[in-house]
């Protein structure tokens, strides 16, 4: 939450900050991810996909 009392509709605490990330440094700004649905739908149809239920080490990478 910003000090303006406004919660962005996007914006995730501890997002990566660029570097050699293949994702740009946009998470945490004013918009969300639009087309992760493409990835999710494709992955859902992929017999080889596996599911995980932890944070995937996100905290360590943040």
């Amino acid at each position, binding site marked *: *939450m910003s000090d*303006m*009392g*406004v*919660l*962005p*509709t*996007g*914006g*995730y*605490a*501890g*997002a*990566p900050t660029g570097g050699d*990330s*293949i*994702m*740009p440094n*946009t*998470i945490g*700004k*004013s*918009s*969300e*991810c*639009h*087309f*992760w*649905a*493409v*990835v*999710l*739908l*494709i*992955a*859902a*149809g*992929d017999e080889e*996909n*596996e*599911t*995980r*239920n932890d*944070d*995937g*080490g*996100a905290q360590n*990478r943040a």
Partner: protein
Amino acid sequence: MKHATMMAALKIERDTAVLRPEQRVMDPVVAELAGAKLMAALGIGHAYCKVLSGAGARRLDPREWIIKSETEDGGLHACYEPEKFSQTVVASAKVPGAVPLSFLREHFGIDGGYPIINADEWGSGTWSMNGVIFKGKPAMPGAEQFFADFVLPAETSAIRAAVKWDSPGMLRIHAARLFAAMTCAHSSNILIDRDARLYSIDHADVARTSGEEIDLLFASVRPGTVAFDSLHIVCTLSELAVREIFPRETAGYYVQRLRKWRRNFSRAA
């Protein structure tokens, strides 16, 4: 998932991660209302929304409404300080007895997981998947009181099945939001109630694209899978319905997307 497919999806994602003004299909206030109408037309749970003045919104009960205020960056953001409401706001009604999936995970230890997609090779992609899709946003102020009317049933198997990242209900929501080029469903903009009914909320950001993501989708999702079947929900829309859901200036864009979606679906099925 094939390397090339993932790269293509990420490129599309990167191009729209933060919308430039010319990439916005419509004003976020209008989009929020259109999104709710779209979900209603598709039989997907949603929150009732209405547009009103900031002054009018100050008279609403904050236990029953979330107020989304316009901001300088062209977005529409939940605002919890009435004195900072913009002139025009969207009031989104509380969905009785429903909680965001992130709340369900944090308070009841139930979550839907997320797919591992070449975790080593796509480290940051995987991060974004679990950070955005799985973990969701920070909880709103007073979330525990706001969602206190949710009571977890003794039998949770239906809820556990519904929130799984690749459940039919979740995939249909992904398909619906993707058709509208809205932001992706994640654990903070999907709610669930004790009857395991899912609700899609927050539809303010819609992107104008060439439709390449639709081509990529149908080129990559195999027919005969639950994922492919979930894409059919969009085909149930008529062009007339699309023209009634979306404002006149944008209806043509969505009719073209519907035609492209149907063409791809028929070709692949």
